[in-house]
């Protein structure tokens, strides 16, 4: 610890003070660089079309209006369907919920089996699963389309859930496997002698110890699946499309004047859930990512 603090420049002397303030300045610039687009989106979504045409891009809204939001939510035309983003938002929820829960559950189960019930070839199996997380998603489009067709799930929410579960398993397994490696094997041995079965050990001992990595995995999967565009655009047809695809279609529907405020409101609606998840569970996310690196 002492070596860490002594490595920082001492806060005395004019030179040091200048260095310290320029450091802050650079950090502020970076923060602004990342925050400006968000600010721009929020500001524009609350403006009227007139104000957007006449005012400056970065100015705050003069007449605060929620019209664009409500229009984007339930009146905007996505293709020929003018029910707004709402049904697609619901589609995304219907897809994300089960996909996150199922992929996280099986990731935990895989990680548990791979670390605590080491069977012959467990490392090879893990290596192959790990390989899945390096696979570009475009590669699986065609085989997945065939599989979904074969299963009769093509174009449905169920099909999209399956795609996300399968693709996400590589990541969730990796997370849980690396977390469970640090949980002592003796716990499983003790529980085995105490008479607990494979699933009893999993539910009564492993899962209750998994909260940090559970949060990480859920946030990760939620973000990935909610933000997914490629699978949604490829495997969901018409009314079953997720919110990201709807947003794209809304912005690209060119009838009359471009309504930037509606576009921005729709984009905010599409992005809000992941933002909320990060704000609510962000600190657990950081904690979970660093869990295991520090003892205790």
């Amino acid at each position: 610890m002492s070596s860490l603090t002594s490595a920082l420049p001492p806060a005395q002397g004019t030179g040091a003070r200048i260095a310290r303030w320029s450091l802050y300045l650079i950090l502020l610039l970076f923060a602004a660089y990342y925050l400006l687009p968000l600010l721009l989106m929020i500001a524009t979504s609350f403006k009227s079309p007139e104000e957007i045409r006449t005012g400056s891009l970065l100015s705050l809204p003069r007449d605060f209006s929620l019209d664009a939001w409500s229009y984007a939510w339930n009146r905007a035309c996505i293709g020929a369907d003018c029910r707004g983003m709402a049904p697609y938002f619901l589609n995304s929820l219907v897809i994300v919920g089960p996909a996150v829960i199922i992929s996280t559950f099986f990731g935990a189960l895989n990680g548990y089996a791979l670390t605590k019930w080491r069977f012959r070839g467990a490392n090879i199996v893990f290596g192959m699963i790990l390989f899945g997380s390096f696979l570009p998603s475009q590669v699986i489009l065609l085989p997945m389309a065939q599989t979904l067709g074969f299963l009769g799930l093509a174009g449905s929410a169920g099909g999209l859930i399956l795609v996300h579960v399968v693709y996400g398993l590589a990541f969730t397994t990796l997370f849980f496997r690396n977390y469970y490696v640090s949980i002592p094997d003796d716990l499983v041995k003790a529980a085995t002698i105490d008479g607990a079965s494979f699933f009893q050990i999993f539910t009564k001992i492993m899962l209750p110890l998994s909260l940090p990595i559970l949060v990480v995995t859920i946030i990760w999967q939620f973000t990935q699946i909610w933000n997914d565009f490629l699978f949604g655009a490829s495997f969901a047809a018409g009314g079953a499309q997720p919110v990201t695809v709807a947003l794209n279609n809304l912005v690209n529907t060119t009838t009359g004047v471009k309504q930037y405020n509606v576009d921005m409101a729709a984009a905010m609606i599409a992005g809000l859930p992941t933002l909320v998840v990060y704000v609510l569970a962000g600190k657990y996310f950081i904690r979970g990512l660093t869990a295991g690196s520090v003892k205790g």
Partner: protein
Amino acid sequence: MATLSINNVRKQYGSVEVLKGIDLDLTDGEFLVLLGPSGCGKSTLLNMIAGLETISAGEIRIDQRVVNEVHPKDRDIAMVFQSYALYPNMTVARNIGFSLEMRGQAKPEREGAVRRVARLLQIEHLLDRKPAQLSGGQRQRVAMGRALVRDPKVFLFDEPLSNLDAKLRVDMRTEIKKLHQRLGTTVVYVTHDQIEAMTLASRIAIMKEGVVQQFAPPQEVYERPANMYVASFIGSPTMNFVRGTLSAEGDRLGVSIGRERNGFLPLFQAPEQAGSWLGQEVILGIRPEAITCYDPAIAAGNPALVKVACGVNVLEPTGADTITYVELNGHEVVARIKPSDRVAEGGTADFMIDMARANLFDPKTEQRI
């Protein structure tokens, strides 16, 4: 309470043989200590008794029943782990009662059993805490409680005291011994600590590289080690080994260790086979406490004591006695003398060796003669 018999048990990982035919038989209520350095296979053997490792060959019987294929939970054993392996998410009470919970025992019965065990181990006030809120010694007690509550036929201990500090380790050792005296349950206890082995065991099995070197009561292991490995593993400071030749002087057999004045050390009760070793090289093993300062009054009454004059190199007082490094005909040996014996470093003094406690070893096979 039960007997435990291990017949020609082997363990192989691929082509590596970790246990090379282990034979041990325990009578009811015995306290077996498996002693050896890390990697000798003692923990593997314990895990095989517990059913956590498969048995490559041979059989293990608990109370005459072959348990090779029996699931750990049905072997009627309980195990205490070095890491304690307490479930971090459960309270002490639930930790202790977990095996009963898994057996489907009703809650009131379970609570009664937990309370009984907690009272026995004096941890009643800890029942509502989580393991993270306990000290090392308290965790150790909870781990024992978890084993006790099952009332098993055999207790298995896997280096249970290694994670405790020195003082607590001695206290818990005594407590384990008291507990064993009280319950009379058969115990298998793995350790690398020779003191734990000596103090606790009714019999010790000393292992090295997957082979049992000696299986005998502690005192016998100490006084009549089966080979030089056992002799040097048990006892601190370790046994002195002096190379010499078995020879005869008059009608007495002895070991000659040089031409100088103390060159011939007559054996008190020579082993029967010693005659055939006449004229051959042997290794003489003498425990440090068998070499003491010469006292004419004691020497006169004990024909086994041989007087030798030695140069004194180093004195290491430990309080109870003084460890002394002396020069015996060119061999440096360790003697354990009383602090009241006045010898000076760098000087010469008379010592006496109790040849009744001497051991002879074959220099090639290192086995006891």
